[in-house]
């Protein structure tokens, strides 16, 4: 099962390696990991996408909680939540391809954020599946470069993760 785990962690040197080290040492999967400081600069918020049986994910959340730098852990996928990922994708867009690429970007509500003589760079946000779908919708030979942030998540409604 895929799980989305959100972590509040002290914004200290080495905190990230404590968390990634825990995953590698205990053989847990990381599909993606995103991290950045919160509105309180002393703390970072991390989203980890992992897969595992219920037992494994229970151990993952407990082991994360045990790390001294970790302030709070919640498994977002246990309840209603929203997840988003940002992708920047650079595609070949010569005279021939331009219209088609722009049309496709519009359908997926992407934005063209950089233009050169023969390339478009498109910004697209959404679930991981939506980003995958966009990639598949394009002619693969036109894709020059992609970069994805990994999934960030937040609980719906009154589900709030803070100290």
């Amino acid at each position: 099962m895929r799980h989305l785990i959100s972590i509040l962690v002290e914004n200290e040197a080495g905190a990230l390696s404590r968390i990634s080290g825990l995953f590698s040492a205990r053989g847990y999967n990381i599909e993606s990991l995103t991290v950045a400081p919160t509105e309180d600069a002393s703390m970072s918020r991390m989203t980890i996408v992992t897969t595992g049986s219920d037992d494994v994910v229970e151990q993952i959340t407990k082991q994360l909680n045990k790390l001294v730098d970790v302030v709070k852990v919640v498994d977002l996928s246990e309840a209603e939540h929203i997840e988003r990922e940002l992708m920047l994708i650079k595609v070949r867009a010569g005279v021939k391809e331009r219209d088609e690429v722009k049309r496709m970007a519009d359908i997926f509500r992407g934005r063209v954020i950089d233009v050169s003589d023969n390339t478009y760079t498109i910004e697209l946000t959404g679930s991981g599946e939506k980003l995958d779908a966009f990639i598949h919708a394009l002619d693969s030979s036109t894709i020059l470069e992609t970069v994805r942030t990994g999934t960030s998540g937040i609980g719906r409604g009154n589900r709030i993760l803070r100290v």
Partner: protein
Amino acid sequence: MDRVKTETLTGAEIVVRCLQEEGVDCVFGYPGGAVLYIYDALFKQDKVRHVLVRHEQGAAHAADGYSRSSNKVGVCLVTSGPGVTNAVTGIATAYMDSIPMVVITGQVPTHAIGLDAFQECDTVGITRPCVKHNFLVKNVNDLAVTIKKAFYLATTGRPGPVLVDIPKDVTQHTCEFQYPDTVSMRSYSPVRKGHAGQIKKALQLILEAKRPMVYTGGGVILSNAAPQLTEFVRLLGYPCTNTLMGLGSYPATDRQFLGMPGMHGTYETNMAMQHCDVLIAIGARFDDRVIGDPAHFAQNPRKIIHIDIDPTSISKRVKVDIPIVGDVADVLDELLKALRAGPRPDPAATRAWWDTIATWRAKDCLRYDRASKIIKPQFVLEKLYEVTGGDAFITSDVGQHQMWAAQFYKFDKPRRWINSGGLGTMGFGLPSAMGVQLANPGATVACVTGESSIQMCLQELSTCKQYRLPIKIINLNNKYMGMVRQWQQFFHGNRYSESYMDALPDFVKLAEGYGHSGMLIDKPADVEPALREAFMRKNDLIFLDFITDQAENVYPMVPGGKGITEMILSEDL
């Protein structure tokens, strides 16, 4: 609040003052470039005693033994680079057994970090997986509070080693010193009290048990809960086992004690662990050497109550029915309150269970050939127990001798049995015995070891001489890495690949070379007299080299990966 008088100190002086404030009376260490200012500060005071080891691994093990035998924090101090890497084995040993330790390491100056400086290593990175937490202090103003945090983290919750890495320039810089009285960390708040509802549910299950078993581990010792455990087990009248890490938390000479569980546990204990209907696990973690194959263990239906301070220990290898997260002593206090006031189990309800246990006990699974003409290692341990009146501190290395010591020395008190259970570190015995002796001056301390293990930290014989540590070394010399040989005999077709210890030193001369005394004992009749003579010499370290049966194996044995009732028993059963 009154204005507290502060003073300006160097980082090095702050380190030493923090140790004094924490009541540390003894530090194990080895100097080097990055810690020279700290050593200078140590030189200028006389409250904290420094014990100079001969190798940093010895410093970590000695601090560890000091802590295990005294419930105080063990402290060690080493320099950067190789000082740290040498100490890592000792730190990992303490981590696996949850021993509270503070490790202070020197680091190259902050401006040199990351430039591959002389004796630089990424200490925080190297030790991260084998410490409870670690810190790199880059500013002298953070030093005192960081050391305070280190002691707080090491001793609270599930204890463990905490490392503080201090660059050399930070030990030179000065700041106002004020040692904080308390420390609070928003990201760290271990639970002490168990959940009242869970305790109530557990109590009900405990009282209804027909085939109960109390299974306890190192957590009972770490939590100083041996008196509570003993009262709990006696009030209930239930059988009890202590794991290798828990030996001594319930008196081993008591009728309700069935012996150690697990790979080399007694037949009766493993059978009872498997066939009980209610298993009360206290400060134990169902590890592979205790319950063997978890799938086999789960074949027999039973209800499991698990009391542990660490939530990650619960339902890690075995699903439990009633988890209670909390300090073992606190939870046992609550259970005892209810038991003292309320109903007790009816002894008649467990009579049939005790009868079954009696039949298992009748197997006499620790039997060995007492008429042997060659010294049997078990015989040495039995005599050691007799000669020391069962009241010595026993440290051990790792291997067959460790298992025989655990089986044959009956520990009635906690903190008397000092061994590396989790990591299984050969070389632990002698340096940890130094820590034990320094924490317990005047006490009888013996190190049970083998000719292979003892050679891994042999250099500490020199430390023992310098500090006049009268440890008795019980060397069970079978000229083999005995446990490796045993596995090769059982599982690798008698191919004794590299397990024979050739070119052994003359241990008697070796001990004499270090300024100690040695004895060679090669006849069963000489075992007891030699032990008596050695223990009479209260002020001397004596190296007793017992030439023992090379073919002897540790029984019972559960092969790796098997269920705990799938035991190999000694051939003559």
